[in-house]
């Protein structure tokens, strides 16, 4: 039974909705929020406070809500910290209160309230200091258990989230009277308009007020206006959409809660959409937020903002109680009293702190009076009022409607470092002078508090914004509306209160502000950080101004001098799901597949992610139970006959132009100018600071045409740097670059039978014999009867080897052909593991050696760096420290036992201490060599070239253990390099 349900309002009294709160079943109406439905059902207690676990009820009727945070839904869709004031009721909604141990009415952590003096501002820093070991074992786990609001399901979110981009001439933030008048004006002028409203219906305060607009009600005018706007193709109305951030250059972030009002989103429809809105102009019509007055135990359920009480009565036909006392310092509080009475709610007293105020029709008005106490454990039962004559009177009531005045909602004006400015007339901060580019402010957000001022301000604001874009508009004619001036006497807190809350969400009382002042945290920024005022989900929307006004009072400075904290994005919390959009799970980043991927899958390959690429790691065969068995077999088969590996992922950059050779001479450390056509050369690239950063090959296909390869990891970076050199450093050179990594499928064909296999597919017109196509040769050929291809005789494995490239779309076919033709040689596909083992056996440097700290000298490639030419990095590569004679040098390492060497181990002398001071170097790569039948490793060793044969220890303090190793040449297999030339 809905005991506090009134008549009228904007809810559908004939459309009941069932929902539950903390397991108890209730009935609401279509158009209700969770908060209004609970109030209508007589539920005032909705949560427990953060620190003291005090019973709390709803304070507001909007997104500023600090108290009524609830958990919605169950299992994977469970969502904590949702403001009950913004939750659109749907049938079957399950909601739970948070931050309690036991039931909401009896919260075991309510004992915190008894120890409140220990939980004052800064209590973490003071209370839990001693004894020191208690911090980790007792205090921290205890605080972690007690802290935080709500809980998460730890299950994957089953819903879809999406992202989108929108462009407009004018973005209007908020669809209250100002926003609607602005939208009418701009829409009629033909401008592209987006009207965004966080509420699920348009109208803002017009839905919450009783005064008519000329001859019709507020909601009727809203409906009429909305109908006209909806008929305009150039106006996009976005309800349930919060503009949460104002970013650079007129870009705004918005989250549209497309399906939050449904139990489950429709199939394939997103639950929320994150929009990036590119606006030429923005008119902020975000209204105002009421502020409370701090008085003794003003946090009891039933103590609410007066404007919210009025909104619940007028819009949602709900009241928190049958008897509502009003406490105010301004005329707006009286409006609430009048509206409540009109709805049949009893208002036993209006307590106005101002002297000598009279309001027409007001009978029980107590002027010059304040509330000095409240009673009621789980909800307010009475207030104690100190009258002007000093006497006190206890007034029974179920709710208190408090109005301390209205603060313009200036959050979005601050996102580009704009600072709100004090407005004396309304005794509040309005927008400052420096607004985000293209933004202007209208209506209550601009300090124009009456409905009339909002309507005309919105229309005029749109005219001015469009004028700047060269669009002429006429202000929409607006209906006659309420135009009362703001009449307010600033009043922030009732003096003498022991526990009067300023920030409900963070449990900050007037006393905490005083403590901060007393301990020297007097600037508003320090006040915020010391007390945590204004943090957490509500960002202090109802608390900040009051807190700093109290600080101003304590320091004796006026409020504008005391200053104010700024608001940062997001305006209200944005779900992580919306920020992630579709970039979740496998879609987190794109997956790049090699041309042979499908074929490799058919072979049952194991894959490894390399950047975005999926590369075949090894190809297990029947009976192989351990990856090492597969890898050892692949290595031996390649070295014994022939193996094929997909190396498409290596970066490929096409370099063309008359000055191509000159250009490569600049970007490689070694000489390229004289490389003959038809030849490939290994190339090393340095950073300008002299550190080696990438290596690869450059093949000269013609006088003016090279193909450069890069490592897989650096493909993007090398291309970027080459473009930098081309455009910024050497603009005079006639050279063009393009990345062709995806354009060519490329396979390494390695092993003594590599040539024999290739001869079966290379068209007979092309002679690839050793004489005609020697080591480091290259050429454009055709294969398989006319398919264009490129052949490079280069070897990473140390075997007779080629890399053959065909246009990517033939990559799959070429792999299948190589396998079919290679049957007679028992051709073996090999993956990245075997590739790695063979390059370590051969002593070739890779990513682990080119690790961003090593020079050409370290790598044993010092002689490659040309002294005769100016190339990127060569000047600074000769700096004293980088060319030290006893510097690190690349060596081979061989264990003296059957153990393998853990990569990452550090090298220490055979005896002596193991510490950083005695560090001799480190192991970069390690593997088991099936050829040598022993573990092998590569590493950097101080003065390594002169220490062959020495015994060292490879130590691994992190995991424990050490291996005795011998320093050997890095070329374990075929050190003379005869095989590649066969």
């Amino acid at each position: 039974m809905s005991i506090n349900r009134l008549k009228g309002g904007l809810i559908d009294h004939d459309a009941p909705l069932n929902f539950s709160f903390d397991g108890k079943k209730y009935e609401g109406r279509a158009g209700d929020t969770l908060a209004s439905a609970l109030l209508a059902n007589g539920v005032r207690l909705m949560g427990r406070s953060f620190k003291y676990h005090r019973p709390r009820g709803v304070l507001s009727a909007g997104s500023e809500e600090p108290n009524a945070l609830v958990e919605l839904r169950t299992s994977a869709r469970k969502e904590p910290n949702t403001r009950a004031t913004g939750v659109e009721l749907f049938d079957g909604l399950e909601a739970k209160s948070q931050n309690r141990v036991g039931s909401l009415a009896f919260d075991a952590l309510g004992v915190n309230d008894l120890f409140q003096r220990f939980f004052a501002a800064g209590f973490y820093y003071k209370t839990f200091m001693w004894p020191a070991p208690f911090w980790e074992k007792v205090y921290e786990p205890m605080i972690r258990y007690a802290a935080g609001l709500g809980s998460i399901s730890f299950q994957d979110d089953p819903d879809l989230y999406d992202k989108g981009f929108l462009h407009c001439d004018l973005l209007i933030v908020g669809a209250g009277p100002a926003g609607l008048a602005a939208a009418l004006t701009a829409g009629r002028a033909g401008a592209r308009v987006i009207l965004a409203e966080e509420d699920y219906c348009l109208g803002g305060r017009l839905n919450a007020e009783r005064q008519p607009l000329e001859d019709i009600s507020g909601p009727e005018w809203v409906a009429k206006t909305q109908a006209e706007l909806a008929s305009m193709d150039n106006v996009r109305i976005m309800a349930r959409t919060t503009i949460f951030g104002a970013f650079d250059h007129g870009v705004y972030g918005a989250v549209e809660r497309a399906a939050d009002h449904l139990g489950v989103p429709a199939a394939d429809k997103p639950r929320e959409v994150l929009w990036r809105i590119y606006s030429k102009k923005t008119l902020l019509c975000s209204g105002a937020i009421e502020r409370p007055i701090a008085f003794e135990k003003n946090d009891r359920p039933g103590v609410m903002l007066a404007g919210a009480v009025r909104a619940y009565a007028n819009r949602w036909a709900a009241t928190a109680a049958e008897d509502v006392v009003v406490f105010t310092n301004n005329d707006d509080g009286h409006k609430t009293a009048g509206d409540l009475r009109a709805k049949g709610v009893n208002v036993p007293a209006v307590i106005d702190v101002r002297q000598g105020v009279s309001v027409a029709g007001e009978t029980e008005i107590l002027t010059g009076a304040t509330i000095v106490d409240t009673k009621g454990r789980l909800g307010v039962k009475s207030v104690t009022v100190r009258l002007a004559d000093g006497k006190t009177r206890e007034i029974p009531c179920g709710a208190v409607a408090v109005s301390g005045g209205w603060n313009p909602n200036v959050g979005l004006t601050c996102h580009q470092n704009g600072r709100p400015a004090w407005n004396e007339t309304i005794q509040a901060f309005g927008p400052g002078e420096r607004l985000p580019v293209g933004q202007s402010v209208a209506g209550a957000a601009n300090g124009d508090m009456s409905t009339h001022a909002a309507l005309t301000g919105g229309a005029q604001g749109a005219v001015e914004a469009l004028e700047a874009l060269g669009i002429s508009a006429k202000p929409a004619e607006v209906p006659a509306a309420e135009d009362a001036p703001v009449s307010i006497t600033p009043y922030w807190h009732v003096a003498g209160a022991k526990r009067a809350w300023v920030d409900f969400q963070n449990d900050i009382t007037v006393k905490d502000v005083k403590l901060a002042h007393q301990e020297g945290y007097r600037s508003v920024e320090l006040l915020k950080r010391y007390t945590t005022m204004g943090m957490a989900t509500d960002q202090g929307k109802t608390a900040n101004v009051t807190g700093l006004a109290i600080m101003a009072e304590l320091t004796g400075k006026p409020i504008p001098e005391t200053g104010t904290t700024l608001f940062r994005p997001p305006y209200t919390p944005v779900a992580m799901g919306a920020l992630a959009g579709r970039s979740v799970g496998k879609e987190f980043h794109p997956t790049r597949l090699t041309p042979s991927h499908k074929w490799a899958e058919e072979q049952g390959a194991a894959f490894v992610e390399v950047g975005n690429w999926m590369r075949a790691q090894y190809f297990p065969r029947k009976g192989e139970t351990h990856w090492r068995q597969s890898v050892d077999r692949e290595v031996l088969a390649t070295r014994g006959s022939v193996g094929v590996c997909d190396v498409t992922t290596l970066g490929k950059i096409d370099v063309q132009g008359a000055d191509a050779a000159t250009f490569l001479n600049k970007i490689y450390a070694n000489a390229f100018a004289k490389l003959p056509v038809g030849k490939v050369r290994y190339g090393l690239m340095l950073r300008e600071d002299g550190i080696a950063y990438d290596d690869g090959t450059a093949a000269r296909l013609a006088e003016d045409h090279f193909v450069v390869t890069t490592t897989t990891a650096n493909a993007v970076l090398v291309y970027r740097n080459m473009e930098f050199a081309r455009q910024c450093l050497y603009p005079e050179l006639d050279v063009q670059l393009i990345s062709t990594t995806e354009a060519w499928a490329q396979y390494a064909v390695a092993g003594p039978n590599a040539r024999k296999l290739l001869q079966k597919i290379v068209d007979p017109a092309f002679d690839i014999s050793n004489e005609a196509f020697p080591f480091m040769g290259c050429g454009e050929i055709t294969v398989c009867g006319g398919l264009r291809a490129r052949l490079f005789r280069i070897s990473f494995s140390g075997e007779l080897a080629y890399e053959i490239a065909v246009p990517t779309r033939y990559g799959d076919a070429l792999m299948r052909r190589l396998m079919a033709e290679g049957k007679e040689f028992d051709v073996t596909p090999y993956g990245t593991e075997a590739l790695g083992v063979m390059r370590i056996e051969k002593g070739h440097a890779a990513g682990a050696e080119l690790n961003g700290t090593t020079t050409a000298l370290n790598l044993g490639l010092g002689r490659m760096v040309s002294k005769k030419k100016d190339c990127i990095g060569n000047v600074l590569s000769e700096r004293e420290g980088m060319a030290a004679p006893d510097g690190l040098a690349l060596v081979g390492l061989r264990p003296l036992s059957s153990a393998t060497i853990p990569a990452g181990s550090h090298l220490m002398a055979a005896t002596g201490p193991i510490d950083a001071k005695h560090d001799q170097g480190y192991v970069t790569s390690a593997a088991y060599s099936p050829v040598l039948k022993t573990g092998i490793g590569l590493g950097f060793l101080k003065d390594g070239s002169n220490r062959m044969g020495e015994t060292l220890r490879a130590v691994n303090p992190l995991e424990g253990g050490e291996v005795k190793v011998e320093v050997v040449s890095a070329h374990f297999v075929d050190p003379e390099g005869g095989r590649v030339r066969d």
Partner: protein
Amino acid sequence: MLIPHPLLGLRDAAEFTYLGDAALIERPEGDIENAQDVFHNYLFLRDNPAGEHRELWFHEQGDRSWLVVTRNTVTHEIIKAELARDVAIQKGRST
């Protein structure tokens, strides 16, 4: 953030990669006297102005041109965007 690309008009900053101070265009020649000192200054010493700053952006998700963008580091206002190649040529790098 939006960058006014001189060829393509307003583009979202997400299409670009940032490098740093446009002074990197003015790479010294390798064969000059005190080359190590000059290169040290070129590579490591930067002004850090609160205000107008000329900086290099690469249109990596676009036409792959390097731009010199003049941006106010305090307000993020973009005053100018030029092709870095044009800037380099103006600085005499084409000779």
